[in-house]
């Protein structure tokens, strides 16, 4: 009965490709007068890596707490594998890496993993988790004697030791330096192999870019963007062109640089990657248009607050560690996108 290796081969049929791994439907969470999440809907599909991106206090951890059943939504609902997140059945299919400040210090890496492996019906095995997380050299070391990076890798190993269908990683690389962070992403990518679902929260755009298939950007408890990392970045770099025009929505979409169009009454709002070209095209198509207004897109503002958040971290890091150039260049990711580790 304890030999359950064979069962792990047969994981895919258990996951219905049409059923979301985790989802929030119109979920609102209030703590007293503070609204941490405001009617947020999001879903992670099987095999998908979903990054929940946002500055500190955006509601990322609250969103994850709801999906994990650690908190109940004030209104709306949270589902895990189509069921109540609190059910044992759902929890046996997930592995979790939370922001913990302490794991009992007087047990070894191997002992911690051995205990967690018994919680799952078909665990990966302790040695497997140790190998994937890169903990071979320190398997018999007490947790209290591990370095920060090694502790973080144990937290990851605890999440995967049960061989779960879905992983929750809540700000997994907070506090790590740039090199450890990249090493961590490599471990995660290697482990995933495109077969498992991940819900990742982070305030690093770079992290979402390195790991995620889909990104949802939260700001002040609301979803401000959703799409692939490329789409989100493109939208983040865009501007809003607003005008009263006689052009139809379809005609407006065809203008140079326009990515999406919204119409509210007489006012048409176009999201553009090249606002200069869009304005010229708009004037050419409708010389009588009026009320022209060009502003930064909401997302850009969201990213400005994002990058100012991480910029603060960087400022401290640079002040302490001198020219740590690689990490310091993170601000440019919002504009230039992916840089290979």
């Amino acid at each position, binding site marked *: 009965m304890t030999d359950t290796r064979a*069962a792990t081969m047969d994981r895919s049929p258990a996951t219905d490709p049409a059923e979301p791994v985790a989802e929030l439907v119109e979920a609102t969470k209030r703590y007293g007068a503070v609204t941490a999440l405001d009617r947020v809907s999001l879903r992670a599909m099987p095999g998908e890596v979903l990054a929940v991106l946002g500055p500190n206090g955006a509601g990322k951890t609250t969103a994850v707490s709801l999906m994990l059943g650690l*908190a109940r939504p004030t209104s709306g609902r949270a589902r895990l594998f189509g069921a109540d997140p609190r059910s044992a059945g759902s929890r046996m299919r997930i592995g979790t890496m939370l922001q*913990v400040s302490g794991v009992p210090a007087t047990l070894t890496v191997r*002992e911690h993993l*051995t205990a967690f492996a018994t919680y799952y019906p078909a665990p990966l095995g302790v040695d497997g988790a140790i190998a994937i997380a890169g903990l071979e050299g320190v398997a018999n070391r*007490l947790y209290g004697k591990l370095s920060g990076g090694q502790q973080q890798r144990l937290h990851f190993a605890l999440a995967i030791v049960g061989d779960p269908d879905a992983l929750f990683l809540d700000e997994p690389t907070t506090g790590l330096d740039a090199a450890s962070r990249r090493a961590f992403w490599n471990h995660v990518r290697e482990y995933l192999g495109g077969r498992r679902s991940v819900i990742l929260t982070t305030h690093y755009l770079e992290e979402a870019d390195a790991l995620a298939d889909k990104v949802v950007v939260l700001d002040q408890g609301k979803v401000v963007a959703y799409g692939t990392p490329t789409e989100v970045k493109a939208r983040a770099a865009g501007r809003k062109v607003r005008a009263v025009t006689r052009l139809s929505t379809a005609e407006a979409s065809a203008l140079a640089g326009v990515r999406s169009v919204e119409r509210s009454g007489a006012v048409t709002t176009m999201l553009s990657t090249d606002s200069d070209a869009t304005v010229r095209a708009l004037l050419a198509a409708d010389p009588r248009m009026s009320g022209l207004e060009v502003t930064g897109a909401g997302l850009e503002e969201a990213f400005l607050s994002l990058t100012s958040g991480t910029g603060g971290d960087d400022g401290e890091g640079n002040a302490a560690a001198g020219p740590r150039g690689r990490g310091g260049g993170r601000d440019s990711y919002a504009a230039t996108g992916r840089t290979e580790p």
Partner: protein
Amino acid sequence: MTTSTPAGVTNAASDAVQAPRRNLPRLYLTEARFEFLKLLRLPGYSVSVLAFPVMFYALFGALFGGYAVQGISTAKYMVVGYSAAGVLAASLFGFGVGVASERGQGWLRLKRVSPMPPLAYFFAKVVMALLFSTLVVLVLTLLGAVLQGVRFEAGTWLRMYGALMLGVLPFASLGLAFGYLFGPNSAPMVLNLIYTPAAFASGLWIPLTVMPPLLQKIAEFLPTYHFAQFALSQAGAEPVGSGLTHVLVLAITTVVCLGLAVWAYFRDEGKTYG
């Protein structure tokens, strides 16, 4: 949407038959084993639970072991008394400090979202407290025999041991309540403020008969006093008060403390998660 292809159905069916299951006995035993190891390696716990009663016994036993109290030698009285103090410390601190710090560090959150049955967490801690308590009783019995020539009949010793282990229930419950009521920094201090006066005023360290009458009166209101008297009566001392009263007080303490723990648990949930 290909939800009900024949292949899918067979697959689901065979899945249901072959669905691997967890080995629950192994889960519980592993959890208990590591809970014990974890605290054994923590000097702050293992030293105060095991070494202090031993040191006290070696010292006070040598000084005052030759008198008689409640029909037994003070040397024997102290074996029971310091054992009771050891059980009290193992339960109170094992649960109180353990839960408070694991809650404060977020470790309990990670355990809660894991598929670990919540009962396993408490089971492990109860087993740990029983093991440490057993160690204290064994060591003190041995010490009493070697240093003071204290002898127990096998049946008497077993009855005393059973009575002492009964103490794990109320005092672990009390520790649990404090683990949820207090934070990781204040819990050890608060528990010490309870443990030390309670142990002293209940006659665990020094027989009550040498204490002022007022203190003896107060003692009757302390669950720790009834715990000590129950253990002493089982160890062959002249009983003071009825055994039924002692057991009843311990049972009521357990129920009240568990109620308090549940209340504190939900209060804590509310504070953290709205």
